[in-house]
């Protein structure tokens, strides 16, 4: 079973994001970068499925050469090979999905797993766009029935389950009001939610091995994708800050404030 996963380079979720005074972007100084946490869950899930059913895990990232860091991270976790789409500048979700579509058509995986959203743009679109462009089944927000401290998780069991005939995939999804279960016929696109798995740490041998694994370079031009933006961010601003509140001494003081000042009940 061949699986394709994504590894977007994003600001570290612990970073403090500040807007430039002219609203043209965010202040880059002091920022650290990581693989998008949801993509890291996608890589982990792919590795578990490939361990259970054998097959390659191909990791894709789009951006400048800096994304090699995220590709090497996924390779160190255990991915087989990497594809780098070399591009400088902003890309919208339409363009990203079109680029991934071309990579998928080239690599012909049985399954694509992506993070449900990247924690910079927070758009939550690319997996769905991609599934429609490919005409494939989709299961967004994939989760797992077992908790992250369960034995199934400790034993690195995949949350995504192949059907008995191996032509389908059963996916449990986090939706409003509960959990929905879908059966996707393969090939399919799955996007990960937080509790699908707990990603592994890259081992030292894994990191050493990753250095010699291949990274194939592609470009939007070579993939024949027009990446001219159809969505532009025209201005950034900081949200209004909440006024700093007060500390109250005890519960009676809190109740007094809630009743008489906030009129909360």
């Amino acid at each position, binding site marked *: 079973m061949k699986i394709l996963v994504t590894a977007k380079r994003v600001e570290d*979720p612990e970073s403090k*994001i*500040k*807007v430039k005074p002219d609203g043209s972007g*965010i202040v880059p100084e002091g920022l650290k970068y990581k693989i998008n946490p949801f993509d890291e869950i996608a890589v982990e899930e792919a590795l578990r499925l490939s361990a259970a059913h054998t097959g390659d895990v191909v990791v894709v990232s789009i951006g400048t050469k800096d994304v090699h860091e995220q590709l090497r991270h996924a390779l160190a976790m255990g991915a087989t090979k990497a594809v780098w789409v070399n591009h400088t500048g902003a890309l*919208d*979700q*339409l363009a990203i999905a079109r680029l991934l579509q071309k990579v998928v058509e080239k690599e012909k995986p049985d399954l694509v797993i992506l993070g449900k959203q990247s*924690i*910079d*743009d*927070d*758009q939550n*679109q690319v997996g*769905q*766009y991609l*599934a*429609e*462009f490919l*005409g494939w089944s*989709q299961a*967004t*927000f994939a989760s797992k029935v*077992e908790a*992250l*401290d*369960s034995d199934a998780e400790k034993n690195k069991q995949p949350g995504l389950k192949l059907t008995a005939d191996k032509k389908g995939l*059963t996916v449990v999804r*986090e939706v*409003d*009001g*509960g959990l*929905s*279960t*879908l*059966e996707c*016929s393969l090939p399919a696109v799955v996007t990960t*939610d*937080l*509790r699908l798995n707990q990603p592994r740490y890259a081992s030292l041998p894994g990191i050493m091995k990753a250095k010699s694994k291949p990274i194939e370079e592609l470009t939007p031009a070579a993939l024949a994708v027009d990446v001219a*933006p*159809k*969505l*532009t*961010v025209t*201005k950034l601003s*900081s*949200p209004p800050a*909440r006024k700093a*509140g*007060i*500390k*109250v001494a*005890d*519960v*009676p003081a*809190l109740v007094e*404030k809630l009743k008489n000042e906030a009129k*909360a*009940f």
Partner: protein
Amino acid sequence: MPIVLIVAETQPDGGLRKASLNALTAGAQLAKAAGAELHAVVLAKDAGAVAAQVKDYGVKVVHAGSAAHLEHGLAEALAPAIADLAASIKADWVGAAATAQGRDTLPRVAARLNAAMATDVTGFTGSGADVAVMRPMWAGAVIAEVKLHTPVKVFTVRTTEFPAAEKSGGGEVKAFAPAAPKLPTKHVEFKEVKSARPNLTEAKVVVSGGRGTKGDFKEIEALADELNAAVGASRAVCDAGWQPNDLQVGQTGKVVAPQLYVAAGISGAIQHLAGMKGSKTIVAINKDPEAPIFQVADYGLVADLFKALPELRTAIKAAK
């Protein structure tokens, strides 16, 4: 005249999802800014009853698409029906509430229409053909003004930023029968997390617990019941399996903006704040006086939640 088409969602029980009323308000605001008329679409096995309900909320036309394959709300079933309708009525904008179903389906609609899309829209700016949308990025640390340059534009709205629509006269219901595509996906089951408490995203009061509860939610739930509140949770709580995932408040969970939000034993990571900092009044109870949650709380109490919550419940009962 341009057309704004809002997708009104039906729930597994067949009723209208309330978040769609907030999306209708967003649609009305956009229609006003863009000089457009507001349409809605309801898709279900039998869309008639919900469509009849939606027509009273200031829409010109409600398109009621009924077909058996729409029953479980699969994106592969809904998206072609929405996109075909949008094309046939020449809609300029297609929107929905940023619910799980909205997020699942609308990008697929956008793909079919080759449209650019904005998720979690919090407002509109500009007018006519020049309308831009506002949306959060980086867990709400940044508000972006975004322009969509495709002929059809797709969006989902953050429902806490728009009040629920109110009844304002009846529109027309037009029934149609979406063609059934070959579905590559099968619905297996929906397991509802049943709760007698108010819905998290609709409640006027939310009482949330974090890692500080160590998984013991008895006092959180007791206070919630005293205040007729919904129960919420931090990511750590859901990750540990102490509470259902559906209760997670934050960047990637539910976004809430109740009148009163009580955070007990929650440190206040930016990802959590992204889901609740729009609340009117925030109360934080935490043992750690340095916890970041105190920076957004109107009233902070440095205390052990297991002592403070029962005391608070008793005091509120007496003060009501």
